Every structure is written in structure tokens, then in C-alpha cells.
């Protein structure tokens, strides 16, 4: 028992130290990427300054993919093992994925207003991104904020796996259905000016750190919520909890 406690405290200390290191790294990378974007990367010839949205829009989309992938992996593992930790990972991935999806769907129209003259168009990539976001919003809506039951968790896990199937469709939609969405960093595109790459790479590193930090933090919060559920159950079983109180 004591050994368990000691091990738990040590591992907790290490976990907190690692989390703080990741936080510091994320702040540094974000600061560096903002410097690269606004002070080093050149202004684009045709679109002007609004093209700089690209440096956060594309990494946001990548972070969204990571979130949805983590959610689907966590959900699949939960369905197989029924361990609560995997469920926490599934929720964390979905929530962070939806956050970055909201960023993509907000920054994209602001760029499109200048580049295309419209806020929104039913382009294949835009539509499939919206659909993926809606699937994971449905995942989150299926789970109550407090004490999701096993049935809800299993149903939501299935939805997350289904939602992941949409991700390759988003990615290859431009190639398959020829939308208006730019393809500058794909094989079909003409590429970026060499001076623009450092800002883009720096943003990718910054968003990788940010998505890892947010998922990690969300998993910890979810595990704390699960502990509340366990304690409530123990208290209720022992008859020390008024049902209407909770």
C-alpha cells in the first residue's frame, strides 16, 4: 500500500514535470512561429497579408486529424479492453479535434472572403471537414457531462471510429473531386516560396506540441472526473450519499 503510494507520488511528480516541460516547449514554439510568420515570411504576391492565415490554418487541420485519430484509437481500445483510461483518451481526442476543427472552419472562411470573394462554398474539402466536425460533435453530445454509462460510452466509441473514416476522405477530396481548395503543399500544387517554409514548419512543430499538451491535460481532467464517479459509487454503496444531492 505504502509502496503503491510512493510509486504513485513519484510517477505523479515525473508526470507534472514532463507536463510543465511540454508547456514551456509549446509556448516557445508558438512564440517562434509567430515571429517567423509576421517578421520573417514574405508577403504573398497575389493575396497579400491575408495569406498568412495559411500558417495556422494548415497546422490546425493537421492537429484536427491528430485529435480525431487519437479519439478513434482510444475508442477502439476501449471497446476491446473496457478500460476507463482508453475512454478518457477517446474523449480527450474528440474534444481537442473538435476544437481544432472549429479553428479550421473559422480561419478558412476569413481567408476565403479575400481569396474567393465568399465566406463559404460547398467545396468537397470544406463540406467533408464540416461533416467530420459534426460527427465528433455528435460523439461529445452523446456523453453527458457527468457519469456517462457503459452503453453511452460504447455507442460514442463506435461513432468515433466511424468519424475517423471521414478523415482520408477530407484529405483526398481535393484530388478526387477537384474542388477550389488550394493544394499548394500537395503533389499537385506548385509549392511555396522557399522563404515561406520555415514559418510553416515552425507552426507544424508548435501545433504538434499544442495538440499533445491539450490532449494530455484533457485526459487528466477526464481521469479526475472518473475518480469522482468511483467515489460517488463507493459513497452510495456505503449509504453515505443522498441521491438527490448529486
Amino acid at each position, binding site marked *: *500500500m505504502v509502496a*503503491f*503510494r510512493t*510509486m*504513485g507520488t513519484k*510517477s*505523479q511528480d515525473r*508526470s507534472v514535470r514532463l507536463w510543465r516541460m511540454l508547456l514551456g516547449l509549446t509556448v516557445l514554439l508558438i512564440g517562434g512561429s509567430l515571429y517567423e510568420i509576421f517578421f520573417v515570411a514574405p508577403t504573398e504576391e497575389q*493575396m*497579400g*497579408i*491575408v495569406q*498568412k*492565415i495559411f500558417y*495556422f*490554418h494548415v497546422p*490546425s487541420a493537421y492537429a484536427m486529424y491528430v485529435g480525431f485519430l487519437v479519439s478513434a484509437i482510444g475508442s477502439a481500445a476501449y471497446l476491446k479492453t473496457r478500460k476507463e*483510461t482508453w475512454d*478518457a483518451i477517446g474523449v480527450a481526442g474528440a474534444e481537442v479535434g473538435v*476544437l481544432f476543427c*472549429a*479553428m479550421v472552419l*473559422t*480561419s478558412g472562411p*476569413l*481567408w476565403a*472572403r*479575400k481569396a474567393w*470573394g465568399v465566406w463559404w*462554398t*460547398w467545396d468537397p474539402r470544406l463540406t467533408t471537414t464540416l*461533416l467530420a466536425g*459534426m460527427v465528433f460533435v*455528435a460523439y461529445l*453530445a*452523446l456523453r*453527458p457531462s457527468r457519469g456517462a*454509462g457503459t*452503453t*453511452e460510452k460504447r455507442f460514442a466509441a463506435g461513432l468515433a471510429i466511424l468519424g475517423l473514416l471521414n478523415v482520408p476522405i477530407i484529405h483526398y477530396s481535393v484530388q478526387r473531386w477537384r474542388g477550389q481548395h488550394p493544394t499548394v503543399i500537395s503533389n499537385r500544387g506548385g509549392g511555396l516560396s522557399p522563404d515561406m517554409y520555415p514559418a510553416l514548419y515552425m507552426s507544424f512543430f508548435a501545433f504538434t506540441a*499544442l495538440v499533445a499538451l*491539450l490532449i*494530455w*491535460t*484533457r*485526459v*487528466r*481532467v477526464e*481521469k*479526475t*472526473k472518473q*475518480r*469522482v464517479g*468511483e*467515489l460517488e459509487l*463507493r*459513497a452510495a454503496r*456505503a449509504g*453515505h*450519499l443522498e441521491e438527490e444531492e448529486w
Partner: protein
Amino acid sequence: MVSQDLKARVRCLAFSAIFLCIALPLGGLVQAQGADSATGGESAADARASSFRAVEGSDAEQVPGGSLLIGAYGVMWLFVFGYVWRLQKIHGQTREDIRRLELALAGAEQSGKAGGDSEGPEAGTDEADSSGA
């Protein structure tokens, strides 16, 4: 109770899916009709090649790139900080719940011992799991 709640959620999800199935094609249709009426059924390139039309409203549209850029970055960081604030709020609330429940359980165990209850407290089954992610 749980199954009723789940049924309500599934019903809500089904309505959302139906709405989505109707809204998306309708949106596409409205946009396609708008494009058709603007160009008389021709493509934008054909319309430009065959006729010149007077602009309606102001004669030139100036879209401010700087404001859009600031708006995009501002909204994105607002989302991130809003999410972090929400996580902090949930975490604070759950920690408070844990503290109250642990106090309630400890109090109950102590009163059980004082009352001559021979059954020992439940061994800390959650110790290993409380170390976080």
C-alpha cells in the same frame, strides 16, 4: 433511466442527421441556382467572355486583408484560451467534489469504527489509478 437518456440522445442525433441530410443538398442547390441565375446558366468564365455587366451597389469591393488576418488569429487564440479556461473550471470543480466525497467517506468510516463496526475500511483501490495520465 440511463436507457431513456440514451434514447433521447439518439433521437436528438437522428434529428441532427436528418437536418444535415436535408440542409447540405439544399445549401448546394440554392448556391447552384444562385450561380445559374447570375450567369444565365453559363459558367463564370463564359459569362465574362460573352458580356460585360454593370456592377450593382458600390463600384469596387475592397476586402481588408489585415482585419481578416487579425480576426483569424484572434478567434483562434480565443478558442484555445476559452478551452483552457473551461478545462481549468472542470478540474477545479471535480477536485472540490473529490475533497467532499473523501471527507464524507472518511467521516463515515470513522463513525463506523466508533460504533464497533468490525468491517475495515475499503482498501485504497483507487490509489494506483489516481496518479493521472
